[in-house]
């Protein structure tokens, strides 16, 4: 039988290339109404009075009084109201919806609702900690006292906007008492459970259907639950189909972004320039709600040792509440911030010690059976040394690194080493998600994959079918994987955390094995529920044990030229080497690699987003620059096999891994090109200019 990694055409290529794939905006229903959100025009305070214009017949106002259930959006931490009742905690906080048949009249009504506020002094400083975590490993306390010297640095990361090309939106309708919603989402059951809570209704009276999704990158993990709850309340009131789709500006101003982070690192250095211990303290800006932020912080802190084994380690951090737009999930989920910080720190420490940076990092690279930052065990083989040799060879790194040390070259090359913990952090997979999948065979020998996993571009509609077709040895055309519909598929968990192929695909693979034994039976369904491998144990209180069942590993090399006059960075070449266990489809994995690295590099040098007094300054695709084809360098990727026992064919996580190493790698390259140290991303031309004027900043 042929190798499953061998690429096939994507099963949805046809409909997407021809433009016939239906995204939420392409769904039209008879008598469809439009909804638009009225939002706060202040950053912090209370609503004093709302004055409405004359509302024409057929038009409706939907606000907190129309939430029949709990006026809180069900996310991991429940602190976001469906509609605010009184309190305003960030600019553009949703207050009410206006619904009606004519979009322009709906907009007129929204514009003519006058709201009086009592303004309060907002907080933008990182002073209100809502969550604090601390854990340590080894003799982290005493080792700093014994150190020969201590080196300390600060690092800072900015916002990053997911910038999926399809904005957020839903359409929904009522059938009797039952609300059905279809929207641009990653997690059908997150949405379903949130709507059940907001409506205070029964499980079988909410149905979520996923259409084609035009990119998500984490941005459609938790935020869509808010829109869905609001729209569900509107549908209950108006009793007609309603469409609610954000325009780009609304999407950029109000949806969740990557948390800005600040990290302080300390290294205890011994007499022989050895790294005795490491301390990190990190803060992330949650914005006005906690939401998923605590989990983001947890993933960041667990990544605090980077790809290295540090015997004595201390991690602490806070989730800070500010009067700014709430932040949330974005591909990498805290890891891109921390890997940027720890990679930069390791590099800078080595420079301070006068040691070759790569040699210094190699010395501490994690090995199989080493203890993780949380005293879990890296149980599976780690092949980073072999991967590193490959990365150096294909990029000709050492020669270029030497050549570009001549400042007149204006060029630089950098290398980053990193991992990603696959699946939910801590005991989430075992205790919260408990994924369920079903596999159905009909009498015509067609096999149906029944899971809630969403294809948002990462290709799961192709790769899951491929797994089933390979194990059952049937043509892929006989494997059916329709868009998830919560009336028909079990809760296999959200499409997040690089868990879909490894966890959901793993369950499907096991269901296939059972199905294969019973193949002669005419019609039947196999159900499987995720059980965490016995040896994987994690204490969420003390951060002790195995935070992840498996780890994917990666290396990025980035080569740049920085214009000596404009300080604009041009990415020339990139080389990547990844261990993703087993590639289920080479072309799809390489696509993830290209796309993830492009986002990761852009996070490091290009994508600028900031707020001034709670106002996000980049509100459209003209202000917020994401890479165009012109910004793409030549890209080369090598995939290594290193199978994980519980992943299908050995597959581990892919999607997030590919974003994580881009920022540090591009920053090292820029550092070499301009002969200055970077402590903040994005390393924009303005920031480089600042560094150039800083006499004390030396590489």
């Amino acid at each position: 039988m042929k190798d499953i990694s061998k690429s096939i055409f994507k099963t949805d290529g046809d409909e997407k290339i021809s433009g016939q794939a239906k995204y939420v905006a392409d769904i039209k229903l008879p008598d469809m109404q439009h909804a638009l959100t009225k939002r706060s025009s202040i950053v912090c305070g209370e609503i004093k009075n709302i004055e409405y214009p004359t509302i024409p017949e057929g038009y409706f106002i939907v606000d907190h009084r129309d939430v029949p259930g709990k006026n809180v959006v069900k996310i991991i931490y429940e602190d976001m109201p469906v509609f605010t009742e009184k309190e305003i905690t960030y600019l553009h906080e949703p207050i009410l919806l206006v619904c009606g048949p004519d979009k322009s009249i709906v907009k007129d009504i929204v514009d003519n609702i006058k709201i009086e506020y009592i303004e309060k002094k907002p907080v933008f400083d990182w002073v209100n900690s809502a969550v604090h975590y601390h854990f340590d490993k080894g003799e982290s306390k005493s080792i700093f006292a014994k150190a020969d010297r201590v080196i300390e640095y600060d690092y800072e990361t900015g916002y990053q906007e997911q910038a999926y090309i399809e904005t957020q939106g839903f359409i929904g309708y009522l059938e009797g008492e039952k609300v059905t919603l279809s929207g641009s989402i990653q997690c059908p059951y997150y949405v379903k459970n949130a709507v059940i809570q907001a409506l205070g209704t029964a499980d079988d009276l909410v149905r979520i259907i996923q259409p084609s999704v035009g990119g998500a990158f984490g941005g459609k993990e938790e935020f869509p639950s808010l829109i869905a709850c609001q729209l569900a309340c509107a549908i209950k009131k108006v009793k007609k189909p309603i469409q609610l789709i954000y325009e780009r500006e609304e999407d950029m101003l109000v949806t969740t972004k990557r948390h800005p982070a600040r990290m302080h690192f300390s290294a205890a250095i011994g007499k022989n320039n050895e790294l005795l211990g490491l301390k990190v303290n990190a803060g992330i800006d949650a914005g006005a709600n906690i939401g998923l932020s605590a989990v983001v912080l947890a993933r960041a802190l667990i990544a605090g040792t980077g790809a290295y084994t540090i015997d004595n380690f201390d991690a602490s951090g806070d989730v800070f509440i500010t009067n700014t737009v709430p932040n949330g999930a974005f591909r990498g989920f805290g890891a891109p911030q921390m890997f940027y910080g720890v990679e930069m720190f390791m590099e800078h420490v080595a420079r301070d010690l006068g040691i070759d940076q790569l040699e210094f990092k190699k010395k501490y690279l994690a090995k199989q059976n080493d203890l993780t930052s949380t005293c879990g065990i890296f149980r599976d083989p780690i092949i980073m040394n072999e991967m590193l040799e490959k990365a150096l060879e294909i990029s000709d790194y050492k020669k270029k690194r030497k050549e570009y040390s001549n400042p007149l070259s204006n060029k630089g090359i950098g290398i980053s080493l990193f991992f990603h913990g696959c699946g939910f952090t801590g005991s989430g997979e075992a205790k919260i998600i408990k994924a369920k999948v079903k596999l159905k065979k009909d009498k015509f020998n067609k096999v149906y994959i029944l899971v809630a996993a969403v294809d948002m571009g990462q290709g799961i509609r192709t790769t899951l079918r491929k797994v089933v077709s390979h194990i059952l040895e049937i043509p892929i055309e006989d494997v059916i994987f329709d868009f998830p519909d919560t009336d028909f598929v079990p809760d296999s968990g959200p499409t997040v955390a690089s868990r879909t192929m490894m966890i959901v695909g793993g369950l499907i693979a096991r269901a296939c094995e059972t199905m294969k034994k019973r193949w002669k039976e005419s019609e039947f369904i196999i159900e499987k529920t995720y059980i965490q491998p016995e040896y994987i144990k994690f204490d969420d209180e003390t951060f002790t044990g195995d935070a992840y069942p498996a780890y994917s590993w990666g290396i990025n090399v980035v080569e740049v030229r920085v214009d000596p006059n404009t300080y604009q960075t041009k990415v020339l070449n990139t080389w990547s080497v990844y261990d993703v266990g087993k590639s289920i489809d080479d072309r799809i994995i390489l696509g993830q690699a290209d796309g993830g690295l492009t986002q990761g590099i852009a996070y490091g040098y290009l994508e600028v987003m900031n707020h001034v007094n709670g106002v996000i300054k980049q509100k459209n695709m003209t202000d917020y620059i994401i890479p165009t084809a012109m910004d793409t360098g030549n890209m080369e990727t090598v995939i290594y096999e290193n199978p994980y026992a519980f992943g299908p064919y050995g597959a581990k996580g892919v999607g997030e891994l590919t974003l994580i190493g881009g920022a540090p790698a591009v920053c090292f390259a820029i550092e070499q090109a301009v002969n200055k140290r970077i402590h903040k991303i994005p390393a924009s031309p303005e920031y480089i200019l600042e560094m150039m004027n800083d006499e004390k900043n030396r590489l």
Partner: protein
Amino acid sequence: MRKIDFRLNGVPVSIETQLNRRLLDVLHEDFELIGVKEGCGEGECGACAVLIDHEVVNSCSIPIANCLGKDIVTIEGFSNTSRYKILKNAFEEEGAVQCGFCTPGMMIAAESLLNKNSNPTIEEIKIGLSGNLCRCTGYNMIIKAIKRAAKEGDGKW
């Protein structure tokens, strides 16, 4: 309201509408051409790209009034051509499609580029695609796909 006549995907059409409506809305809503996507609404992302008299144009930035007598081709019209088949195959071979939301616009931009330059260099392809944003692929595979299409479609453009 006024009557506007133009050619749409090779067929003469006529529509009674407000003159200030965006071509994007007329195509998507009135003609139900769902291959024309709204990504940004301000001419920045290219998801709504169509050909007007063989030139690639963002349909969100064109009022329908400007379309009088024009020859407009959307992905739906382009997909009936042999050049489409070559490009489609190249996109699939190279893995140029992920979420698919930018893909019809990319196909239109590629057709326009190859019409002007049947054998573009990598740099020329990058310039040709610079008006179309893709957040999934990092463009690498789209660039390779167009290079492949140029080779395989020798003589078609």
